[in-house]
């Protein structure tokens, strides 16, 4: 009965790991193809670039994965990102202490996250509608923050802020990569090792069974939306640091990129399934495709078509695998 004798078997015993390994293989193949087309793809400069491109996709991927695993969806991620960018930048240009700005900004994001969770869990709004509404609201707040203008440069006072959220390197990696890594590690721990995380899977798997087992379903869903908004807020801050200013349309369409990263990484849109390691791979595939197609001198339009197709194919595979297994189970004589 002891399964921990063989390390590979132990690895595969982790739920969802099989799919993650399959997708990782796809990632390796992609990297090989792109480096064959253009050897510069694997240059240290491009790899640094790539690592920084992955960060925002990974973090919004964590956002969306949390919500998707509960069986819901969050369309407000991109707008919350934009809102975070504009609010923080506006404060900083007005001379507010950057760290105070960061805290206030994150609180604003969490309010939107709570609203999402409350509307979906307590008011029983369809998540698509509820977060479509907050998506528009958050974008409106981003626009209103600086009277419908992008902000000026956040200036010298925020230099440390920019250092930490964009420039600095530790051990050869840019700080956003470290931030993303820490955030990911933290939320991965919550999801895989704590009671709340377990409840997130349970609610997404069978909400009625969870309720009858005494799980606080509403609190669980609200928590997932809070995580979602928090991560989106962090990316917003990084965007401010990167650009040195606030842009009203920051994060446009990122909720969809987030769905893509999650789904490619094996998070099911039907809930209850997926791990955050998969989201990392999903985000990496997304970024490698963007970056590699650029290196292969593919026009933007082609890039979009390829990436769109990849998203559809991965979800299609997910559905086929699921329904295939289901049929198999049905036919099995009981």
């Amino acid at each position, binding site marked *: 009965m002891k399964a921990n004798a063989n390390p590979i078997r132990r690895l595969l015993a982790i739920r969802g790991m099989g799919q993650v390994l399959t997708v990782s293989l796809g990632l390796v193949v992609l990297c090989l193809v792109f480096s064959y087309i253009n050897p510069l793809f694997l240059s240290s400069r491009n790899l640094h670039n790539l690592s920084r491109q992955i960060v925002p996709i990974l973090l919004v991927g964590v956002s969306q994965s949390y919500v998707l695993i509960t069986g819901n969806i969050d369309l407000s991620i991109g707008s919350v990102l934009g809102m975070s960018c504009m609010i923080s930048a506006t404060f900083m240009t007005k001379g507010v202490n950057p760290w105070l700005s960061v805290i206030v900004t994150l609180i604003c994001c969490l309010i939107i996250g709570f609203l999402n969770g409350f509307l979906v869990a307590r008011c029983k709004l369809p998540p698509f509608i509820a977060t479509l509404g907050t998506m528009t609201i958050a974008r409106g707040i981003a626009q209103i923050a600086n009277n419908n203008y992008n902000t000026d440069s956040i200036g010298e006072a925020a230099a440390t802020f920019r250092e930490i959220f964009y420039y600095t390197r530790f051990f050869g990696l840019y700080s956003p990569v470290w931030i993303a890594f820490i955030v990911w590690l933290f939320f991965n721990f919550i999801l895989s090792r704590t*009671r709340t995380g377990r409840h997130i899977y349970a609610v997404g798997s069978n909400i009625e069974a969870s309720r009858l*087992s005494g*799980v606080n379903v509403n609190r669980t869903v609200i928590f997932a939306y809070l995580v979602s908004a928090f991560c989106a807020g962090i990316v917003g801050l990084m965007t401010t640091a990167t650009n040195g200013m606030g842009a009203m349309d920051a994060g446009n369409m990122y909720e969809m990129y987030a769905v893509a990263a999650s789904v490619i990484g094996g998070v099911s849109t039907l809930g209850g399934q997926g791990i955050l390691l998969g989201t990392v791979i999903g985000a990496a595939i997304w970024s490698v495709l963007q970056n590699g197609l650029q290196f292969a001198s593919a026009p933007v339009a082609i890039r979009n078509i390829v990436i769109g197709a990849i998203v559809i194919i991965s979800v299609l595979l997910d559905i086929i695998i699921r329904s295939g297994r289901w049929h198999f189970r049905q036919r099995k004589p009981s």
Partner: protein
Amino acid sequence: MSEFIVEMEHIDKAFPGVQALDDVSFSLRPGEVMALLGENGAGKSTLMKVLGGVYQRDSGTIRVFNNEVGDLTPNMAQELGIAMIHQELNMCTQLSVAENIFLGREITKNGVLSNREMRKHSREVLDRLKINIDPETIVGDISVSKQQMVEIAKALSANARILIMDEPTSALTAKEIDDLFDIIRLLKSEGCGIVYISHRLEELQHIVDRITIMRDGKFIYSMDYADTTMDTIIENMVGREIKEKFPHVECRRGKKIFEVRNLNAGRMARDINFELYDGEIVGLAGLMGAGRTEITRAIFGVDPSESGDIIVDGKKIQIFKAEDAIRSGIVLAPEDRKRDGLCTKLSVRENIALPNLDLLCNLLGIVNRRREREMVKRMVENFSVKLTGPEMIAGNLSGGNQQKVVVGKWLARDSRVVMFDEPTRGIDVAAKVEIYHLMNKLKQDGIGVLFVSSEMPEVLGMADRIIVVCDGRITGELPRCEATQTRILEYAMKFESKSERLAV
């Protein structure tokens, strides 16, 4: 001190339009298995859901372990040691066995899940029940029967002393039922009280100590199993007087219209053979979940069938989808009007036109408004549907009138066979009689009528011939003159004997 661990007295519970429980009393001793018996809709599950905290009672008292409890919630019931295994399994299929067993009661250490400990406890419980499942298996990957066992393990790991099982054997094989009975005997010897709801009366002798019979939301009687006979049980389950009037019309049986040969469609429609003749109404009787709906759906082509021939007017026809059935003149008025029968947000006109658009449209697919109006007018008048006008929204009609529209939309074309699934469910007595008249009219017009009904008096009152289904098979056929409630129920509970070890 009382000898009972559960006492429920004078429990009332009403749902909109139905008195589900009417002054019901119930008691359970430690270490006994109590069978709760009754027909569909007798209120068995409702009563147990009140005890399990899923529903709140309207009035009455509940005492558990001699303490009076107020309004229960699922959580409170769990804490009191009441565990309920629902008829439909409630498992998180993507989680593992151990995770399901501890769902809502996870063991943590400094906020971190102690998976190892939970696995260990799960294994202990499973071992105690002699269930051979690895706690790390994903629940969705194990058979339904094993899932049932996991539910029991989950109940026990929460230290349940009162276990409610609602139809636990419906999905199990003979071997698994024997295993389940072993578990029940084990729990009994440990002093747990078990409430056992089942339609399979032949199982009772193996485990049951006492029985309680309910009918129409009322308590009928309770007694020791040893002091009763199967006949008295069935009589008391059925024994209601027939109140409704059934306008039966005698017709001469004409030629054969419709024939089903060796139809197989999944587990719930196995080797189905029957015929319909001109001038007769055939009732399809059976218990809930016996496969009646599945049979009609397979004939209509909405569910795939593995094999079988369908013959209309002597001509064999191929049905792959509902469209094929409709073209051949076979139509179905489904069980759930609001979900399957009507587009409730569309008007009566649009609903009636929907399946007939092929007749109403020209080659370009443009609807001929004049013909549509005429068709709707004809149907509304023929069936005397009461409405303010053809533009009335279908969802706003009364149940009986909705049913007329469901039927009417099919009769606007020349149908040969009409299948009704529970045509009078949820409509009042007067409307029922109108639906019966409608069925008689079809019969007189030489259209084959097959109707599924759970209401015995209705089947007995309206059908010229009754086909009884049990567990996906036809177990009996009775002509009108020979049919009685008792005989139908006998056939309806003629399960393939599953318990091998203790054959009846």
